[in-house]
């Protein structure tokens, strides 16, 4: 577990980060959302001490980061930035091997780990390993950046607007992939973004920052339904709120028995997916069928428009 206690940074008398408190559970994704200048990147960089904090402490499993050697600390923390920061004069494989090499892993261990990481990120090691970063697309380079950050099995992964430079399609893919990889490795992730939609879709916990302060911290559901102040509310555009909320609720728990016509929806879809299918096909109920386990099962389970409307209501 990582604990951030009363962390502050003061530039020219101004508190850029003001007494930030936060706890990151091992194996979860926490996303800090804020406008530019809110101090979110500064907070992130104080954790691996790229910036030194003026007040407060960061504890990794109870140990104060100031008591660890600077280089040793950074080798335990993966770091990903917006334009990936890959070393342009090193091949993809050597980039991924950076921290294991610094930690003095044996050559066969490094080689095996590089292969494993590239395969995890859907990059054929024989094809992409020997390439140079400028020979990759933006999305591929970003994946290599994340693979490099995770290569030495760090205690945590810091990500500063990691997908900010990617186009929407590649960006959605990268987010999906991050979620999968994070589950697979059980990594503890702290990400910074200005995009509330990204935060809601990735975060187990969301911290909203404004003018150096963490104004609200909680699960996405709470941020959407009970924004702590007008600033948080403004980040979740008012008209989108019902849809954002529905997107966070799986339809599985709200299936009723009955019959409905037309194409089915899978039980792991969200209520927002169901609503959009209903609107698009002009139906007020959808059959729910798990196409993978029972493709031909008769549809006795449905999800109804009435239930969706009820569940999306403001509380």
């Amino acid at each position, binding site marked *: 577990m990582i604990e951030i206690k009363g962390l502050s940074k003061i530039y020219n008398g101004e508190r850029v980060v003001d007494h930030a408190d936060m706890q990151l559970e091992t194996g979860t994704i926490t996303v800090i959302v804020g406008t530019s200048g809110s101090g979110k990147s500064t907070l992130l960089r104080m954790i691996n001490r790229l910036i030194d904090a003026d007040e407060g402490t960061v504890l990794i499993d109870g140990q104060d980061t100031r008591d660890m050697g600077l280089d040793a600390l950074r080798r335990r923390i993966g770091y990903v930035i917006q*334009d990936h920061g890959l070393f342009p004069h090193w091949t993809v494989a050597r980039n991924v091997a950076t921290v294991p090499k610094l930690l003095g892993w044996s050559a066969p261990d490094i080689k095996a780990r590089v292969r494993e990481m590239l395969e995890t990120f859907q990059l054929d090691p024989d094809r992409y390993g020997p390439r140079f970063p400028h020979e990759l697309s933006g999305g591929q380079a970003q994946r290599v950046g994340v693979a490099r950050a995770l290569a030495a099995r760090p205690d945590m992964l810091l990500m500063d607007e990691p997908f900010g430079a990617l186009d929407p399609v590649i960006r959605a893919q990268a987010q999906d992939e991050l979620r999968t990889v994070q589950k697979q490795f059980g990594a503890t992730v702290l990400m910074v973004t200005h995009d509330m939609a990204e935060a809601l879709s990735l975060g187990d916990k969301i911290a909203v920052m404004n003018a150096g302060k963490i104004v609200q911290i909680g699960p996405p559901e709470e941020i959407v339904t009970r924004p702590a102040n007008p600033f948080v509310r403004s980040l979740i555009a008012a008209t989108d709120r019902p849809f954002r909320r529905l997107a966070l609720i799986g339809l599985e728990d709200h299936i009723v028995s009955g019959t409905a016509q037309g194409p089915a929806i899978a039980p792991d879809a969200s209520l927002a997916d169901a609503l959009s299918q209903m609107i698009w096909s002009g139906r007020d109920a959808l059959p729910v069928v798990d196409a993978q386990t029972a493709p031909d099962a008769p549809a006795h389970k449905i999800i109804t428009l009435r239930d969706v409307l009820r569940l999306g209501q403001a509380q």
Partner: protein
Amino acid sequence: MMGRLFPWVLGAMIVLFLAMPQLFAPLLRPFASNPDQVIYDRASLMALTSAHLLLVAMGIVPAALLAIVMAAFVSRPGGADFLPLSRVIVNIGQTVPPVAVLALTVPMLGFGTWPTVCALFLYGLLPIFENALAGFSTLPQSVVTSARAMGMTSAQIFWRVELPLAAPLVLDGLRLALVIALSTATIGSTVAARSLGEVIIAGLTVNNQAYLLQGGVLTAALALVLHAALQGLTNRMRRKTGRPLA
């Protein structure tokens, strides 16, 4: 194709000429004032060429070391205050013409090699320093930040990241300085330094155009070959890292 082959052909010609200068005598005879004095023979051309190259190396190697260290130092946050001072030093080297340096240093260092080495050293500082400075101060910040964030020590960042990334521009400066030094070294012979200038001066004093051509063309050819070799090296580096040609 011609462009890539040219330095090799020229290099081979130089080697052939130095090994067997008499082969070229028929070409040079029409320019000789005296048919018995076609190929310079008061010293072997091979020895003079070696001495010439040694002279250049003695001036440029220390100039490169000093200029690159200065550029690396003033391009980091702690050294920025020393940038104006460094500029003054390298500019003095550029402002005083090599001939004046020879005139000023002969009384102190005596005739021979050292005044010329001194002039080449001072003259080489500026191009190497300015190019290296451009190389070190235009490093992509995201890359350097990544290196720090991954836990590289300052020394590791310098040797593994900053220096290799700045290398093409550093080499650009070195190439410029070397080419200038190769031609400037000829004037060293006015103060009795052994160089290809000796052949040129002999040609001037006895009015023998064949000598002038040998000394002049040989010096120019050496400069061209060195230029092409270093250019090829930097181009290969740039292609590898995908950094655009500056």
